[in-house]
């Protein structure tokens, strides 16, 4: 760090680059702050879908309701998969910090398997609903449901592909700073998806059954 030329921060009394005199913050800080802002904007987008769902929830147009379609046991398994994958993603971050390739592969494999199980259960749920005639065009409720839950599912799919790419990068290029930054961003993305899922299972499934 270039701490020598920096004046003490007026409040904390500490040297703080990025607070004026210190010059720009290190690229690692800038990248993850930028990605954090992206994640928040993604959550704002989800909030619009949540609002649409909440407004249209009761508009079933004589079609099937959530209570008839949802299976809480499947939702509980999905939640367990995603929650555990968020924990293994934390282990991935720790392995990356410790520069342990074996740890990264192990934690990433667990995350991939759990994420893929989540996706598999969700797709079979969707297929079951479509087979019963509960397609997105059936009612406003189903349009909002498939848009909201489907968007989350697409995010999980993108996350899985991203993780595979990151594994390839670690395998071929090792622990370059850029690769480590991308792994850090992936971990943020995956944890944020879990936060969206918490809102999703509470609002859509649990409140929908109540």
């Amino acid at each position: 760090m270039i701490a020598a030329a920096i004046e003490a921060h007026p409040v904390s009394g500490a040297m703080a680059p990025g607070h004026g005199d210190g010059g720009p913050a290190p690229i690692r800080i800038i990248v993850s702050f930028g990605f954090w802002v992206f994640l928040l904007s993604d959550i704002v987008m989800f909030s619009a879908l949540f609002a649409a769902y909440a407004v249209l929830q009761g508009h079933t147009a004589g079609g099937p309701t959530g209570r008839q379609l949802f299976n809480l046991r499947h939702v509980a398994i999905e939640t367990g998969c995603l929650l555990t994958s968020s924990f293994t993603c934390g282990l991935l971050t720790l392995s990356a910090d410790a520069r342990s390739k074996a740890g990264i592969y192990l934690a990433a494999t667990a995350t991939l398997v759990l994420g893929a199980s989540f996706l598999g259960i969700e797709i079979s749920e969707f297929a079951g609903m479509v087979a019963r005639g509960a397609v997105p065009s059936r009612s406003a409720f189903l349009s909002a449901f498939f848009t909201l839950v489907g968007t989350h599912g697409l995010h999980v799919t993108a996350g899985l592909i991203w993780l595979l790419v990151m594994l390839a990068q670690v395998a071929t290029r090792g622990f370059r700073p850029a690769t480590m930054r991308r792994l850090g961003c992936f971990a943020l993305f995956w944890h944020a998806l879990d936060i969206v899922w918490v809102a999703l299972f509470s609002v859509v499934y649990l409140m929908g059954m109540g």
Partner: protein
Amino acid sequence: MDNRGDVQAATPGEDGSDTPGIASYLMGFGLAIVLTGASFWAADTGLIYGPAVPIALAVLAIAQMGVHLVFFLHITTAPDNTNNILALAFGVLIVTLVVGGSLWIMAHLDHNMMPMDQLMQRQR
């Protein structure tokens, strides 16, 4: 961390101090399991007064999001985290406006609108 050293802005997802590590993730995982279990229990049990169930679920969900933010994303209130917290606060403001505002205005519209069959009759 040395107090007189350089405090740089912390990134989301990592805590500048030497405390985090596996303990933080285990703690978050444990709390998240308890809160998720409580949510599924609250939705299923007959012990809670019916109309209060959605409120209980909302409280549990917000608590769990807080757990994820603190123990998984390591968002703290430390001075080095000001940027992250401010961005988060702005995000929460927008989410509240979008969801709360939509529900509020649509409930009023529903309340004030003529029932659909009468509306159709009038258009003939």
